[in-house]
């Protein structure tokens, strides 16, 4: 199991707990969608898994080499070209100079940006930037890839395409992916498993399996989306005054 979370809790200072008693097991090569409304501590949970923050209580088991991370904004360095952004990730990982160039080109090809390597981030569209960002996180060469709402800021057409793209790359690279979103459709579209987090405090309240049939049968997928949405709303309603 690459990721095991046991009774994980997190609070900042004396405030109310952000995460409380989070339990989850994520297997190698699995694609897990972490779904929740605002205030469910999704980003905090990702930061804890990535080792950027420490939990206040509970235990967790993560790969010793850490995790690759992809953010909501592409967060590319504007002073580097697309290729150089990927090469920097390789460099910081300790890849030799000669290998960096070929490896970066391979990764650009993987995200279908083989010819855009010399463009600077501001010359790329949002979707292209996000793909460079994906290539950069793959350049980190970690088994575990954490994604924090990476497509939330994209237009619907681009997002639909990137869903296909991400699924393809996941299959080609065999990464373990934890994908945070508050979009139910996106969770059903991408995850093999959808974990629903409650809000304030965040806790895994229910999970659903998404099968291969859901990928091709829109009716089935729509049904599951409905079920998950209903459960999510129930969670939100609990906070009504």
């Amino acid at each position, binding site marked *: 199991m690459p990721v095991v979370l046991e009774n994980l809790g997190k609070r900042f200072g004396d405030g109310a707990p952000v995460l409380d008693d989070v339990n989850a097991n994520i297997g190698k090569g699995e694609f897990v969608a972490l779904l929740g409304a605002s205030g469910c501590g999704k980003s905090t949970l990702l930061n804890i898994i990535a080792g950027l923050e420490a939990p206040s209580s509970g235990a967790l088991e993560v790969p010793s080499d850490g995790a690759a991370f992809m953010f909501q904004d592409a967060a590319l360095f504007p002073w580097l070209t697309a290729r150089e952004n990927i090469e920097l990730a390789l460099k910081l990982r300790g890849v030799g100079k000669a290998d960096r160039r070929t490896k970066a080109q391979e990764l650009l090809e993987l995200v279908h940006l083989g010819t855009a390597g010399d463009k600077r981030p501001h*010359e790329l569209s949002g979707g*292209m930037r996000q793909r460079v960002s994906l290539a950069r996180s793959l350049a980190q060469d970690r088994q575990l890839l954490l994604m924090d709402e990476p497509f939330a800021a994209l237009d619907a*057409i681009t997002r639909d395409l990137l869903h296909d793209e991400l699924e393809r790359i996941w299959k080609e690279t065999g990464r373990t992916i934890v994908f945070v979103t508050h979009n139910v459709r996106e969770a059903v579209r991408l995850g093999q498993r959808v974990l629903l987090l409650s809000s304030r405090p965040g806790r895994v309240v229910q999970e659903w399996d998404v099968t291969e049939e859901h990928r091709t049968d829109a009716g089935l997928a729509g049904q599951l989306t409905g079920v998950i949405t209903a459960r999510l709303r129930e969670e939100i309603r609990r906070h009504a005054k």
Partner: protein
Amino acid sequence: MPSNTTPLAETEPDAAPGRAEYVHAALTRTSTGKEDLRELESGLDSLQSDAERKHRIDWSRVLLPVAALVVLVLVWQFYVSLGVKRRDLVPGPLDVAGQMGVLWTEGKLQEAMWTSLQRGLVGFLISVAIATPVGLLLAQVAPLRRAFGPLISGLQVLPSVAWVPAAIIWFGLTDATVYFVVFMGAIPSIINGLISGVDQIPPQFRRVGTVLGANRLQMALQVVLPAALPGYLGGLKQGWAFSWRSLMAAEIIAVGGTIGFGLGSLLDQGRALSDMTVVMSAILLILGVGILIELLVFAPIEKRLLRRRGLLAGSTR
């Protein structure tokens, strides 16, 4: 994003010809294979990227400043020809140009210009070499910054001319005096520029650096320094301005000894001889060097830097 409780998928007609069925975007796979996906993506990429624009030479950039200069000289000549003041107190542009010609044939102009430029540049480059690591260190290490930050800001406010008397007492009338004054002018402003550049880095960049596994040194050199480059360049510009000013101040005040003959010395000589044409020539030369360095060195670097980062759109540059 609104979500429906009724299981209704967003539908979109498929682009593939000869197929009547609909793909259910958002919920299921929308592309029909790897090649299809590649094609769709490249279509979308070209729709969403701007067409490349050619950069042409914008003549108004050259002509407008020249026109402004011509107007100023004409106004000056006009004022002088009114004869309000004595000609030896307020010489006209032609008198000053004539004096410059004389200074040139005497070789004084070249000597003064060369001496000052050389000192200014050497002093500036040494200041950069000192200020850059110090600035990075202050920007990255919080206790150091808290301790020395106010002092450095204060030094920037202190006119570096104030150091001239002290420098003369310590180093006598030597080049060391001149360089010391230049350093005290340039170093604090470069440090401050670098620190404010670092302060303006979006926090996300550091997070990315951490996630990518950068250690402290790598973070400073690969992330923080390039990210802070626009602010740093601003600091360098100001640093150059301060070294040039401090140099002139030092040259005007400290004359003689082993200190060579610079533009400031020329200015002071003109004052001693009560020759306004020499004074004006020296002032214009000092100004001219400043403008040339800005136009030939800093402006192109800054423009390139900003354009590469996509920060130039909509500016009046």
